[in-house]
């Protein structure tokens, strides 16, 4: 499941429909998502030198595209 596209913002965890997330999108260019976009749970995120992996306990694992 793709955790980068969904109902919630992967950066701030708020609803995508609630306000402007342009700044969040900009930050996500330089950091991995911290919130699941499907349920806005905080994810466990492992960053490695050339990739990252984010895991939501409900919606599974996403890696960098």
């Amino acid at each position, binding site marked *: 499941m793709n955790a980068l596209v969904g109902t919630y913002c992967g950066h*701030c*965890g708020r609803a995508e429909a609630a306000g402007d997330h342009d700044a969040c999108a900009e930050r996500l*260019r*330089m*950091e*991995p998502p*911290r*919130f699941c976009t499907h349920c806005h749970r*905080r*994810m*466990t*995120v*492992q*960053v*490695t*030198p*050339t*990739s*990252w992996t984010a895991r939501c306990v409900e919606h599974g694992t996403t890696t960098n595209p």
Partner: protein
Amino acid sequence: MSTVAHETEQTGAPEDRDILSVAREQVLERGVPLNETQILAVMRTSDESLTALLGLAHEVRMKWCGPEVEVEGIVSIKTGGCPEDCHFCSQSGQFTSPVRSLWLNIPELVKAAEQTAATGATEFCIVAAVRGPDERLMTQMREGVAAIKAAVDIEVAASLGMLSQAQVDDLVDMGIHRYNHNLEAARSFFPKVVTTHTWEERWETCEMVRASGMELCCGCLVGMGETVEQRAELAAQLGALQPDEVPLNFLNPRPGTPFGDLPLMESSEALRTIAAFRLALPRTILRYAGGRELTLGDLGTREGLLGGINAVIVGNYLTTLGRDPEEDLALLADLKMPIKALSSSL
């Protein structure tokens, strides 16, 4: 005298010309670091003199360190949940940061080392968000370092917080050749940054590491609201410690931390800081670390490499992302700066 220095004499402010002239004779020609008063004078030079200052710092780097650039990758073996309250850090368990705690297993640690080596890096640093290592972490390190050394041709460094003498000895036995423990801030500013441990405790760990035979990597973070005087104080304190490497971080304000709303450092100020640190530490590895992408951008990154920097962290950081390694390697090739080979660091 170089063309750049000559231009400064024509255009720079008189006080800028004075300190650059002193630095040229003292640091470039004789290899004697600037003292705190002199570093402060460099940090107070005008934007008009910045090009000349960076040019001089580059000459110093080339003369006393050479053209090679040391490339390193880093990974977090234990993320988040740290009991300390470093106000810049998203991994402190004391703030409402979105970073959650997790451990990296050994197969993934080895994979990260392989990723790093594939970029051409000679150094792989394993970092943990802890006050100091407990037995669980030391065991994980012992097994992880052995697994890396069996699989990957790369130097292994570590950053595990404050150490006891027994832990220093254990790390030496594991074959850790460089240990990172940052001062982070000047002694006079440190209580504004951290309250759960002291600057002196950090210094003590650094001294133990240096005495152990491991190389000492000790850096800092600038742009946390310190004064220029405190930045000069910090450079002088690092000079007194004489680390083998100084990683220079620029604050990347993290959501939920006490410094989360601070502005980014001005790029000209960041470049002046790089040059001043080079003049304070003429023979030290001066490494670009976190925050450079945001603070300096592509152009500033290039200018810093031509202004005293001679090492980079390639790829991602501990919790944030860096530039594509290919971009940095292409930039180094464009600047005709060879990557330091593994054989020359052994």
